[in-house]
């Protein structure tokens, strides 16, 4: 069973072993509105925590996804390029953006859990 954490920028990351799966939260897709374009990172890209790693654009605006943890991108959900609306219909499931091999699990542990994230969105 994987563990899920959240960032202040409304991303989620599931950790399974040393591989994290990253997406945006239902709260984030609701704020964005209809998603019309997604850009995922190339496999093999090495990113530091906080780096711009993916892009999601809605009818209203463009938003960047920042890497929730440091690591190497090991898989990207290229299906989102053709079906960006999946981000609206299943943001916390099939519409994951990329998978990342973590360099430092402490970064993951320091992120918000579900309760803390809920409090963050209601602040």
């Amino acid at each position, binding site marked *: 069973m994987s563990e899920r954490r959240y960032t202040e920028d409304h991303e989620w990351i599931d950790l399974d072993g040393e591989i994290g799966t990253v997406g945006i939260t239902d709260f984030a897709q609701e704020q964005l*509105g*209809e998603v*019309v*374009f997604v*850009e995922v990172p190339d496999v093999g890209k090495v990113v530091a925590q906080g780096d711009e790693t993916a*892009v999601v*654009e809605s*009818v*209203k*605006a*463009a938003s960047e996804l920042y890497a929730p943890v440091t690591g190497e991108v090991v898989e990207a959900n290229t299906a989102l*390029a053709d079906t*960006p609306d999946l981000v609206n219909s299943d943001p916390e499931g099939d519409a994951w953006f990329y998978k990342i091999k973590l360099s430092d699990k402490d970064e993951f542990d320091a992120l918000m859990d579900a309760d803390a994230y809920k409090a963050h969105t209601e602040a």
Partner: protein
Amino acid sequence: MTETALLKTPLHALHVELGAKMVPFAGYDMPVQYPAGVKAEHLHTRTRTGLFDVSHMGQVRLTGADAARDLERLVPGDLDGLAIGQMRYSMFTNNEGGILDDLMVCRIEDGLMVVVNAACKDADIAHMRAQLSSEITVLEDRALIALQGPGAEAALSALAPAAATLSFMTGAEMDVDGAACFVTRSGYTGEDGYEISVPADQADALARTLLARNDVEAIGLGARDSLRLEAGLCLYGHDIDETTTPVEAALTWSIGKRRREEGGFPGADVILGQIKNGAPRKRVGILPDGRAPAREGTEIQAPDGTSIGSITSGGFGPSLEAPLAMGYVTTEHAAAGSAVNVVVRGKALPAKIAKMPFVPNGYKR
């Protein structure tokens, strides 16, 4: 947190009741979208009928026998050539030929009815009061409701049969469900439709009566923006401003033959010179080849990497089902079909100069 008090239109309570997401816009608390969302609202307007609150815009009446000639001193449009009930799109220009605001002018029996942008209205009114001899009345006690889409005629003529007799870009006073309104067949979505100037205290009831029809839905500013972009229409402060001339903005069509011959408006030397000799840059439509939208501020490059301009409005067109934009490029690259690149997040993405409107308009001429 301190906030400047936002103004409310007469339909504010209705927007809140309908579940609109309200945002500050030009000093007003306005609906950017309703629960249906921008895309659904946009498509509803293209296929059925959308109701927009545009009461934040400035409605001004100029009274006087020579009001048309009078206002011509500030705009390049041929207003004196308008028959009573006919309307025209024009713009206030400055001495450098730049655009201070764009406006709609309709000739009425004893003068002109003018509609200006919300963000510019105070400056526009001061400008007219300082420069014109006509009596200028700001219609503060009237709301403005736009009804747009292929079903607009059926929806409005059910309440005001005379609305069906108006053709595109004409207007008349008429009774709409008991309210004394000034109705024009115009709008800013590329669709057939109307703008209804209604007494403020009757606006809420009229909006509710229209919305009670199955095919009429309230539409927010978000969809208004994507609709006008697909229609190739300029948004003041973005696609046109004090640094762009009407010729550069591809609005030369709005300057009548007589005005080109006579001049007599601010910046006429610059504007007429550009009509004669060409302008250095031109507003064009742009279609990116891929799926990535290119937004306002995006650099436009020639295929060889030379910077040739920038995007002034851009996004995703729900009816076009593709990204689209408008912007300025140097005239040598302005021909429809020309290949250009748009630099999105550091990457030069291929795009083409395109004719506007991006989707066919539905005007009833």
